[in-house]
Structure formats: structure tokens, C-alpha cells
């Protein structure tokens, strides 16, 4: 089936099979591999995207359900000349180890700071509870959130 949607401000379309997730549609059909495919069951958050401005796991959304909706992926965050402030904070804090969880975490942090500009540690912990870092680099990730919040 034909699915047309807006991704990172651009109107795009492609063919999806009925049971296809938004995640594989983004990665394989629209060639946007920034959203990572790890657990495919909503456990790890590495496929996090914004769906009409709401944080979701793209592996748990049907590609067909995105028809006519607006998606923002990690690829849509940086400006041409500069990283998104959250991405820059991850770099500056050294919050990246293997990097596989990073795109999902960056999108989740962008969502958190848009709702709660100066989150407490508990708010950070709860907001990022759906994003797993198997390198267990959470301390640096928390540092990155604090740096991004301070700079905003």
C-alpha cells in the first residue's frame, strides 16, 4: 500500500506492506537509518521518533497509521551548519559509547526538554526510562541532559 507522510518537514511517500512498522518503513523504504532497529518490541527506545510532536517507538506504529501525519526523526534535528543543542550536549558530555542507543535517546531528550525545560534527576530518569543503553553510560547521558538544559 502507498503511504505518504511528512518526515522532517519533507513530503515523502513509499510502499509498505500491511503489517509493516513505521520503523522499517523509515529505514528501508525512505532510507532514513537514524532510527535504530534493536528490540522491535518497544522495550529499548532506540527507534524513538516524534509522531505529530509526540514521542513514540516507531517499531510499535504501523507504517499505514503514519499516513498524512508528521514524523520527526533524529535526522531532522540538526541544522545544516550545527548539531541540535541536545546532540552537541551529548558530544560535549561524552554521552556516547557504542552509540546505538544515542539517536533514540537524543529524540527522547529533545521531547523531555520541550515539555520540561529544567528537569530534576527524577524527571530525567522517568522520561528516559524507555531508552536502554546497554553500555550502561547513564551517568554521562544525565550530564548531557543537564548541559542541554543549562544552555537552553
Amino acid at each position, binding site marked *: 500500500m502507498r503511504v505518504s507522510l511528512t518526515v522532517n518537514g519533507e513530503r515523502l511517500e513509499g510502499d509498505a506492506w*500491511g*503489517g509493516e512498522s513505521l520503523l522499517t518503513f523509515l529505514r528501508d523504504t525512505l532510507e532514513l537509518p537514524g532510527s535504530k532497529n534493536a528490540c522491535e*518490541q*518497544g522495550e529499548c527506545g532506540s527507534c524513538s521518533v516524534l509522531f505529530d510532536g509526540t514521542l513514540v*517507538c516507531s517499531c*510499535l506504529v504501523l507504517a499505514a497509521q503514519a499516513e498524512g501525519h508528521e514524523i520527526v526523526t533524529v535526522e531532522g534535528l540538526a541544522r545544516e551548519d550545527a548539531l541540535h543543542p541536545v546532540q552537541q550536549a551529548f558530544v560535549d558530555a561524552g554521552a556516547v559509547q557504542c552509540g546505538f542507543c544515542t539517536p533514540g535517546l537524543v529524540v527522547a531528550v529533545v521531547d523531555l526538554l520541550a515539555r520540561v525545560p529544567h528537569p530534576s534527576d527524577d524527571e530525567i530518569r522517568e522520561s528516559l*526510562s*524507555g531508552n536502554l543503553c546497554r553500555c550502561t553510560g547513564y551517568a554521562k547521558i544525565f550530564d548531557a541532559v543537564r548541559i542541554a538544559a543549562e544552555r537552553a
Partner: protein
Amino acid sequence: MEVLRPRTLAEALALRAAHPEARPIQGGTDVLVELTFGHSRPDALLDLSELAELRGFTEEEDGVLRLGAGLTYAEAMQAPLATRLPALAEASRTVGSPQIRNRGTLGGNLGTGSPAGDALPPLLAERAEVELASVRGTQTLPLEDFLLGVKRTALATDELVTAIRLRPSGGAQTFAKVGPRNAMVIAICSLAVVVDTSEGEVRAAFGSAAVTAKRVTVSLADAAELPDRIAEAAAPIDDVRATAAYRRHALRVLATRTLERCLRS
């Protein structure tokens, strides 16, 4: 696999009647896992996510709240709903992660009908009814009559869950859940308690300790018996998450703790 995408409830009910084999999907947090891992391969999906009729909630006459089947856990956690139904808000906050709560819905929790569904104990404790619609009309069933077994419900093949109706008791209430961490946990067992002084009773409902979530009611005077009554009503099993004995013990502890919390407030 065909995806049917109605834009109105009337259209959805007509499609449901014409395609009884189509799997209804709302937020997708349960259905996508089934599809991706090949646990089910329905011929068609009936996508309900565009139906404005299922969204949000309305307050009706005599204080009845009608929660749309498409109400998300994230919405149930926010005021003003969270103030009217605090136990449901607490339970919603324990569901999955923010990503899951933004997408998962009460209607989906009912439709899946898992004994571990986190919204079910608080809804049972508030004596919720399920509104079911089809081209034949609309009927309302007490939630306890809707839940038949493990992932088995009274939903007919031409029906859709359209809403949950309840009259908030206004009583002190809370929800507690046992699991290995604070997020992304399928309940080992869970419990919602409502102290309803106007009815002179305490209503509790547990999850993950029988084939369905179940309610236990005791009079206020007999409130101290609640932990034993819950442990007696539970029929837990041994599985990968915990033993039956552990679940029964944990329910007793949760009952004592939640009751104390409610009676103190």
C-alpha cells in the same frame, strides 16, 4: 495484509461487520509486537487510530465519566482525569515507558484482555462498564463480565470497544504493582484499592494472579480482612516472572500497604 482505515466510527462499525477476521488496532503497542514476531498474521487490520469519536473523555449526567477507548495512558495521567481517578492515573504511570504511554490506550488494554493489563484493576475497583458498539447497536457490560479469560473477552466479532463508563467514587484510592524495575514491567502482580465511604465498602482488584483481573469487596467494618480475602480470591500460577506462592504473598503485602495508605489519607 490489508489495512482498513475508517475515518468515522460508523464507517469502522460497517467495516468490522464486513470483515470479522480483521484485527482491530488502536495504539499498536500490543498488535505490532504480534505482527513483527509473527505471533499472528491476520488477513486484515482495522485501524481505529483516526476515529475522533474514540478520543478523550466526556462528563455525562449524574457524574458518569465516559472514557473514550482511544484515551491514552499519558492522558489518563494528566489532570483533570488524574484527580478524578487517581488509581487509574497511578496505574497508567506504571505502564511501559513514556513512548508506550503516549500510544497505548485503555480500549487496547481491554481489547487485549491480558490478566496483567495495568488499567484493569483500577477500572474494576471503580466498577467500570464497557461500552461495546456494532452495526446492531450499543450495549454496556460490567467490566467483570467482559473479561472472560487469558486474552479472552466477551467482544463479539462485529463489535468494537468504544468507551469505558464509570462514576468516580471520590474515595481514597491507590494502585501498586510488583516488578523487577519501575519501568517496562509486566506486572508480577498488581492491586488497586478504593475506599468508598459513601457505599461503606472497600473495593480492591488485583491483576496477574488469576485468568482475569478480579475484584474483591469487603465492608468498611471488615477492611482488616482485605489481605486474606484477596489472597483467597487469587488463583495465581508459576511462570517465568514469579511463583504462585510469591504472587499470593505479594498481594497480601500490597493489600496491607495500599489499605493503610488509603485509610490514613
